[in-house]
């Protein structure tokens, strides 16, 4: 096993643990009876608007779905990363699948950023939906973390494009005898 294969296998293990923690954490935060402190730490917006206890069951269910959406996008990007890792371990560095996975990871990371920004807006709307008329809040916030996530997203798109060019050059070279 080469060093790069070993590193990819380590990365795979880390990604699997992250997926489990992320999805497990999501359910834990919203459905464990003693998890409100965790929710408020994870979603400071909720604590700013009265905490988890102030939500009715309908708001809790919607809040769960709203906060789940960006996580699902990130989980799918990670699953694609696992697929890419498997392809790389199999030696398919310049394969059509590797190119597609790379590009798709980039796209899903951009979707994740979009959903993260959107979920904060929706969460504020949800938390203030039972407020008296005129006291519903609307906010749009973009954090540096959101922008930082765009860096690996763009890198994935660029690497996908580089793989496409390299593959076409290799194919052309194969047609020269």
């Amino acid at each position, binding site marked *: 096993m080469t060093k790069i294969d070993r590193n990819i296998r380590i990365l795979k293990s880390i990604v699997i643990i992250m997926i489990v923690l992320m999805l497990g954490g999501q359910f834990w935060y919203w459905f464990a009876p003693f998890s409100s402190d965790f929710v408020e730490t994870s979603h400071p917006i909720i604590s700013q608007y009265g905490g988890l206890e102030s939500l009715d069951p309908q708001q809790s269910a919607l809040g769960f779905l709203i906060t789940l959406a960006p996580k699902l996008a990130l989980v799918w990007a990670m699953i694609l990363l696992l697929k890419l890792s498997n392809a790389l371990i199999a030696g398919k560095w310049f394969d059509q699948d590797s190119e597609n996975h790379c590009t798709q990871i980039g796209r899903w990371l951009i979707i994740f950023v979009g959903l993260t920004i959107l979920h904060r807006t929706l969460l504020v709307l949800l938390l203030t939906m039972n407020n008296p008329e005129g006291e519903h809040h609307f906010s749009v916030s973009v954090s540096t973390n959101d922008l930082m996530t765009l860096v690996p997203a763009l890198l994935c798109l660029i690497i996908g494009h580089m793989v496409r060019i390299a593959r076409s050059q290799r194919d*052309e070279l194969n*047609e*020269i*005898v």
Partner: protein
Amino acid sequence: MPIIVRLDVLLAKRKVKSKDLAAHIGITEANLSLLKSGKVKGVRFATLAAICEYLECQPGDILEYHEDL
């Protein structure tokens, strides 16, 4: 493609088998067949030199340019 590969004609003239030429220049018979039929995008100088050496000819004997093709 206006470039015509005359390798099959040259092989017939020299009475050389494709198999022997392929073995000499170090490519597969399948690739030599593709080269003979002109179904390749290019020829390496090394391949061309090995063919010329084995068949005792010039590159111009193997490749021809036809404007109307």
